């Protein structure tokens, strides 16, 4: 297992796309979160009473994740699909023929690297956002805030693993991105606005993730942060599991 892991780590760190996508994840998430925080602070007096009642300073500073997660998805998908688009997967499997070992090596590599980037992104987003929110800010020691900041990092990490699973299922970069990107960027937000479908859409990973990184859980959603964590985890495990079953059976 260790040689396979080292090998995957060398692969990840020797292509430029890793640095570009992870840097984008950080910059977009932090930057957009800061922008939204600054706008909130400037316009707080003009917002409605209802909005003020549900105001959550922590999740406002994480507003950038909606867009930032797309770069994270690209990173995770490319870790798997670049092997298929170049044909390198055959060299990889000739070197490591145990497919479970190979898949786990990729999962652990992504897990380790993304966990570091996610923690960095979550904490920087939080502190920068709070600084810009001025008098509306919360402190890291307030109840539920530390959990929400770590929740953000956990959500990002699990999202990356979910994407790795989907990439193993579809193998080609464009179809994998064509499934994941609209799902997180369009389909889930739209379905969550449709009254009846909403009950199902509540269990989508991005909604569950939002429960995880908000201090005030949304009252629309019928579960709290802990359940949110397990829902995102279940999505990630299911995608990797299905990805593995297909990967094990198929010709490379």
């Amino acid at each position, binding site marked *: 297992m260790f040689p396979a892991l080292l*090998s995957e780590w060398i692969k990840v760190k020797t292509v430029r796309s890793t640095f570009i996508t992870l840097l984008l994840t950080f910059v977009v998430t932090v930057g957009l979160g800061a922008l939204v925080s600054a706008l909130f602070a400037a316009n707080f007096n003009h917002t409605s009473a209802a909005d003020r009642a549900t105001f959550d300073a922590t999740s406002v500073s994480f507003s950038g994740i909606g867009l930032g997660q797309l770069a994270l998805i690209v990173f995770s998908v490319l870790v798997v699909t670049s092997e298929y688009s170049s044909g390198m997967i055959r*060299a990889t499997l000739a070197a490591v023929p145990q497919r479970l070992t190979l898949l786990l090596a990729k999962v652990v590599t992504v897990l380790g690297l993304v966990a570091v980037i996610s923690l960095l992104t979550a904490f920087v987003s939080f502190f920068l956002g709070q600084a810009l929110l001025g008098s509306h800010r919360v402190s890291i020691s307030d109840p539920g805030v530390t959990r929400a900041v770590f929740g953000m990092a956990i959500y990002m990490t699990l999202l990356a693993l979910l994407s790795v699973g989907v990439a193993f299922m579809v193998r080609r970069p464009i179809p994998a991105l064509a499934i994941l990107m609209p799902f997180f960027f369009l389909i889930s937000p739209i379905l969550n606005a449709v009254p009846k479908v909403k009950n199902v859409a509540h269990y989508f990973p991005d909604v569950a993730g939002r429960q995880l990184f908000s201090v005030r859980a949304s009252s629309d959603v019928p579960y709290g942060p802990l359940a949110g964590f397990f829902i995102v985890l279940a999505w990630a495990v299911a995608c990797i599991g299905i990805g593995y079953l297909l990967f094990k059976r198929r010709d490379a």
Partner: protein
Amino acid sequence: MIEVNELTKRYGDKLAVDHLSFTIPQGVVTGFLGPNGAGKSTTMRMLLDLDRPTSGTVRIDGKHYGELREPLKYIGALLEAKAVHPGRTAHNHLRWMAASNRIPAQRVDEVLALVGLTAVAKKRSGGFSLGMGQRLGIAAALLGDPKILMFDEPVNGLDPEGIVWVRNLMKSLAAEGRTVFVSSHLMSEMALTAEHLIVIGRGRLLANLPMNEFIDQNSRSFVRLRTPQPEQLLDALSREGMTASLDGNGAWEVENGDMARIGDLAAANGVTLHELSPQRASLEEAFMRMTAEAVEYHTETPAPENPPAAWGENWKKES
């Protein structure tokens, strides 16, 4: 030793490999021959457990490929040129591979030098020519210093110098006692390097024999002659028990003919000869005869009876 037993691969209703059984002899270059679409690459992928066989088995020293620990130290394979991430350097490409099988990192520089890529080791492989990609693939195959080497169409896309280099490399690898299994669709190429031959067509085994046996069995020798008085000469030949047949270009072929005797016979009968030459059928023709039944895609038009006119000869007709 690699043993292939009743190996079969089906894609939908198409049988790509059909109950193929053979053993690859150790320590020599074995040519794996077949027309395009015969199932050579599919077979090679199944040897490495990349494609799952529909039925049948492959055993490498009695083991399944997936059971080999650090398989690159057993078998090195070149499957397709440029199966590398275009953004990764040649050096880094070999580095991840070495790490996966606990091969010391200095071996990377050794194989890069061996294939002549040291100067471009730190360049991204995306900018490599087909020939450089092929050399990188060969470096990858040699990385683990394996006993068995497998090359799928290694001379494809190489310039003449590269072709000679690959030929010599394969011979020297076999001379070191390694087993070299190399696929090709060119008999003439194999005749220069391989000691043993495994021929397949439409996924089925057509021949499995030492190269020199194949040459003995298939190299037809005959004498070609041209004469303005064919009737007289044919009579004279048949009196001596020889038969001649027209070859389609106005020349006659005498199977296993003795050139001196035919010349004497012509002189004795006062027949003018315009050509008298010894001929050997090429191995390529023998290979084509063997696989004619098994060719996947037949061309519709038969080979031209007469050679096409030289360039410029037809200008008068067109005007």
